[in-house]
């Protein structure tokens, strides 16, 4: 290490110091306070939190919604990324616009649009009735299904783009080589294309999942107070109930989950990278 690159390393100091004080320190203090008892460290707030059945229901719902959202986004995103990687000219532009335009729009705008779509007199219900699929309006707003659909819609670009960028870089001659060696299409997909595109899938899923466990605007516009998630409980305990200890505990629980997702996904990405 020479003096020059030493000095270059110093360039990172202002940004890191800023993030350390304004971002990392507050989060660490929050975590610390959640285990701080009258005398010494304690897990009593967590025990209290998990012993309440309502809280467990909300935690489970949050995880379930996030998981289903990630799965739905993945199921749509994978074939889309596959088609996109083969698209050229105007079609590629259409795909890119469809991904980038929603990404540049606020989540409030999109969640609000879904709350209009899901109304009992909304577009989806009118279409279903015109097509004769149902006679009566289906109750969609305020359901978990609506939430998963709306959330998957909002996070879809974050799933498609990492998978697309991996599939696009795949050497298209690899599956062809496998095929000329007599591999069946199924074998080719499961042994060549899928494993090579896994880093994109992991990156997209981790990002979507961590956005979905902590989303607040989307559930508050699509399901409202009826089906609470952890984020909504946090907002409610701080902004309406003024119950700060409860809000801090739930925040700490959500933070621990988020950190776990980040660490787990980077560990997984590292393992995938090492294998290839």
């Amino acid at each position, binding site marked *: 290490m020479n003096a020059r690159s030493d000095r270059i390393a110093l360039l990172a100091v202002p940004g890191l110091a800023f*993030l350390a004080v304004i971002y990392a320190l507050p989060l660490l203090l929050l975590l610390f306070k959640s285990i701080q008892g009258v005398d010494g460290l304690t897990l009593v707030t967590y025990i209290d939190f998990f012993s309440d059945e309502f809280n467990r229901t909300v935690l489970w719902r949050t995880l379930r919604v996030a998981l289903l959202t990630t799965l739905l986004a993945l199921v749509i995103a994978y074939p889309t990324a596959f088609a996109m990687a*083969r698209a050229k000219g105007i079609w590629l532009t259409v795909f890119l*616009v469809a991904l980038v335009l929603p990404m540049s729009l606020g989540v409030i705008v999109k969640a609000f649009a879904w709350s209009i779509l899901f109304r009992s007199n909304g577009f989806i219900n009118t279409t279903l009735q015109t097509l004769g699929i149902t006679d009566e309006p289906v109750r969609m707003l305020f359901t978990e299904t609506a939430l998963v659909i709306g959330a998957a*819609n909002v996070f879809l670009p974050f799933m498609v783009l990492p998978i697309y*960028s991996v599939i696009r870089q795949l050497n298209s001659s690899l599956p062809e080589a496998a095929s000329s060696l007599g591999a069946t*299409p199924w074998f080719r997909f499961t042994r060549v294309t899928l494993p090579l595109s896994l880093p994109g899938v992991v990156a997209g899923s981790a990002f979507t999942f961590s956005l979905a466990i902590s989303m607040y605007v989307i559930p508050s516009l699509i399901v409202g107070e009826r089906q609470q998630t952890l984020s909504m409980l946090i907002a409610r305990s701080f902004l309406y109930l003024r119950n700060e200890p409860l809000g801090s505990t739930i925040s700490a629980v959500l933070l621990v989950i988020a950190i776990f997702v980040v660490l787990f996904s980077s560990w997984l990405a590292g393992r995938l990278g090492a294998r290839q």
Partner: protein
Amino acid sequence: MTQTDRITIFFAWAVGIGCIIFLMLPIVITVATSFTSSAVYTLPPPEWSLRWYKSLERRSGLWDAVQLSLNLALISTAISMVLGTMAAIAVARGDFRGKQAIATFTVSPLMMPGLVVGVAMLQFFREIGLRDAYWSLLLAHVVITLPFVMRTLLASMGAFDFSLIDAARTLGMSYPRAILKVLIPNLAPAYLTGGLFAFLASMDNYPISIFLTDARNKTLPIKMLQYLEEQPDPSLAAMSSGLILMAIVVLVVASRTVGLNRMIDT
């Protein structure tokens, strides 16, 4: 190409086109409802009208919220650009341990729950005695924008040929001047893309901002959700359509200068 290949490709295209429709649906619906003459959201609207656009003039505090959001987004993005450039150069050029950790750490606010970051900042600012809503919001918005700038700058600086900087220095430029005159123009697409997404993230942030506002400092998303709770009429769709138009204009300009494909690369 075998039969199975053709079916697979057809299936991928079918899902892909469905995906395009799915992604565009909320945007189309919002714009369509904003031109309704009715006070409820019916589609297709009974009659087309501009009444909800006109009603925006009467919304109290809307313009103040727009100004505050623009102000925060511009200043925080500018600060993030400076901090981000320095940190990204350090990661790209420096020779020290923990470079990967720095990269992960600076991008990590993207994956942290917004409400929790907001709560933690609220408690922290209170403890250090920072009570001014504007300054709290500005500090928080630098944390919101920095990851977007870092992500694009880290990716593009990894591919930048730093011997250009050394060449400029041999020709007598100082290091900061070489960065300004050589590095930044060369990485203009990355700056534009990172800056654009950072700006939009700041404009859109609700979960962190909600804990740091006071009665006089309300950002646009906070004001919009407040309107939605008080008076959920299609004027919100009109407001959203305004934002959609803004996004389209910005994207057209960005794609002309950078290219859509490069925007998503970083």
